[in-house]
């Protein structure tokens, strides 16, 4: 183990790692980036929060969750419903119909929208609904020992079905989705101070989520999860119920995706089925694969790198950027199967190999 990685696993190292990240996110980034770029970065951080969850479920637990768009979308739509209710109430008093429903010809508020006027109910729903859904689905799937490609196909089909379901719901904005939010818990969204504050909230949530992931990885549970990933049969023979172990990781990943979706809505200002279907779900996975799925920070780095590359490439080459992006994916996956996070280890191995060759040459 190199001195660097030893340092970062020590008590002091973890503290200084978090302190460094906090300084970078709260101090340096706001100075470095314009208001627009900071907002964009906040959007990328939302993707990174999803990636932390995937890193846990896929990287540590071996479950290829190709359908995280479902949970991202649940969080996002729940938040969007609250913001729309608050906007309508501010304009036309309690019980008013959100503007997009008026256009769709819906004159009275659907009953299931009413509770979302309450911020407390909304936050509780964002935290509980997707998690509960993931637990139920996880139990149904993992207890029956569905795994590998079958699980991946199932989760992807779920994302596709969810997007199609939403397109058909005129009371959730249908194909257009929900947009045009004015207030976030009483604060005007279109105000530079509040936009920066939104960014700080997202950054703080990301730090908290990474800490949670670190805690889980280092706990007894984290060891069990890796054991299930590497040899589920053996873990079962030892007397553990491997399904329960997987359900926990899957539910945590769902919870993180839901939180990310809820933050995405005020940051980006729109949620539509196009942001949560099969393609966005695959993009989440791609970020994690490119960053390095099994490491702590790999998913975060990968999600940020993919989003940043997409924005930068498309700004530079508006008509040809998709080719460049595809090439980037192929190069990284072919040359760096362990992702960006494996570069330090690869560099070390390369140095060892050179040293060994040097020793052989002198012998």
């Amino acid at each position: 183990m190199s001195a660097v990685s030893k340092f970062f696993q020590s008590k002091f190292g973890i503290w200084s790692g978090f302190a460094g990240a906090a300084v970078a996110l709260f101090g340096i980034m706001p100075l470095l980036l314009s208001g627009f770029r900071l907002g964009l970065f906040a959007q990328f951080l939302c993707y990174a929060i999803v990636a932390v969850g995937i890193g846990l479920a896929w990287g540590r637990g071996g479950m290829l969750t190709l359908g995280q768009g479902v949970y991202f979308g649940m969080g996002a739509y729940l938040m969007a419903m609250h913001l729309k209710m608050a906007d309508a109430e501010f304009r036309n008093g309690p019980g008013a119909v959100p503007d997009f429903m008026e256009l769709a010809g819906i004159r009275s508020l659907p009953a299931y929208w009413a509770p979302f006027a309450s911020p407390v109910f909304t936050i509780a729903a964002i935290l509980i609904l997707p998690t509960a859904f993931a637990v139920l689905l996880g139990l149904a799937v993992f207890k029956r020992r569905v795994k590998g490609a079958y699980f991946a196909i199932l989760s992807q089909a779920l994302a596709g079905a969810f997007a199609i379901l939403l397109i058909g719901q005129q009371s959730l904005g249908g194909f257009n989705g929900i947009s045009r939010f004015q207030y976030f818990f009483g604060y005007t969204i279109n105000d530079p101070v509040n936009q920066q504050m939104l960014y700080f909230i997202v950054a703080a949530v990301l730090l908290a989520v990474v800490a949670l992931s670190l805690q889980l990885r280092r706990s007894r549970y984290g060891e069990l999860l890796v054991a299930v990933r590497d040899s589920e049969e053996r873990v079962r023979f030892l007397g553990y119920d491997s399904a329960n172990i997987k359900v926990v990781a899957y539910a945590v990943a769902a919870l993180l995706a839901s939180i990310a979706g809820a933050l995405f809505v005020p940051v980006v200002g729109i949620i539509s089925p196009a942001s949560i279907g099969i393609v966005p779900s695959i993009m989440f996975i791609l970020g994690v694969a490119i960053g390095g799925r099994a490491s702590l920070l790999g998913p975060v780095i990968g999600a940020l790198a993919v989003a940043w590359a997409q924005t930068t490439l498309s700004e530079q080459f508006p008509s040809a950027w998709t080719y460049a992006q595809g090439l980037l994916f192929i190069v990284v996956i072919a040359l760096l199967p362990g992702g960006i996070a494996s570069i330090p280890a690869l560099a070390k191995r390369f140095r060892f190999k050179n040293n060994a060759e040097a020793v052989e040459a002198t012998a």
Partner: protein
Amino acid sequence: MQNRFKPTSRALAASAAILIAAGSAAACGGARAGDETAAAESCVDTSGDTIKVGALNSLSGTMAISETTVNDAIHLAVDEINAAGGVMDKQIELVDEDGASEPTVFAEKAEKLIREDCVASVFGGWTSASRKAMLPVFEDNDSLLYYPVQYEGLEASENIFYTGATTNQQIIPALDYLAETGVKSIYLVGSDYVFPRTANAIINAYAAAHDIEVLGEDYVQLGGVDFSTIVQQVNASGADAVFNTLNGDSNVAFFREYSNVGLTAEEMPVMSVSIAEEEVGGIGVENIEGQLAAWNYYQTVESDVNSTFVEAFKAAYGADRVTSDPMEAAYNSVYLWAATVEKAESFAVADIQANADGVSFESPEGTVVIDGDNHHVAKTARIGEIQSDGLLYTVWESEGPIEPDPFLEGYDWAADLTVTE
């Protein structure tokens, strides 16, 4: 071993502390609901010899096939204006961005164009979803969008100019035409999103007031290609005509199935509102010959302005290319913006808004005039028939340009449809 877990629980505590700190900092943050927020300062630079504008179209993704043609038309208009000396003696510098067929990307790139590139205005958008995503960006940053596609109406933003048709310039003339030709019953087929649903709501109201029977109303998912059931139902209904609001690839499958079961334009004509010259080739002329479409412009419109436009377009992009209504509306939008700037003698948004009323342009489709109240343009409606060369030929046109009425306030039978803000 137990020791190992300690530092991480502290890390957890530390980040929880950060979260609380951020939360409490937010409490003393910026404007609350109801406070006046100052409009964003415009960063448009009008001091140099050039003026920047943006083109925001989907150059990748499912909409790319349609939207790249609009992008070409915008470039053509900019090149022509530059060759003629520019706007207020400034050359136009066009910044391209890719909306990638995704509403969130449209919102992101619109904000980038306004806040980072400091463009004076933006031309682009196609789907209603992309327009709805961009609308708050243009309103919050007080900038201008020129949107070139026919749409479902019921919208009038101070920060958007709509140079395509609204419903009373496309759908209602199409219904008038069908009624004139003796159609007493229709069948509605559409993609499942806001434009077809709104269009069909209007058609139902129109039909109720004009003694036309609506025999069925079916929707398929955007991009859906299974039409065997729907076409069977259409066939069995014996309707006098079909009103088609399908979008994109679904049209290919629908018309193939339609001609497979032996239905023809003579027997049961189909009136389409999303099929232009570009789409006919994909569907196959043999499947769609004789069918009807409703637009404001066809490549075959006979005028000197149009033949110059078509020649210039083919010279720039190839002799095999065709021109269509959204392309022409996008081309017009650049000229309308330039004319408004010249009239206002300013690139500022407020000056353009104040001077837009009555600005006109001799366009390929005929004279178009901006309505200063609702930011739409007066346009001539045309019903076209698809012929064997794959082009559309006008069979009926309105007497001069129709004034835009996005909220259908001038139609008694539409009173229940609209909610004006």
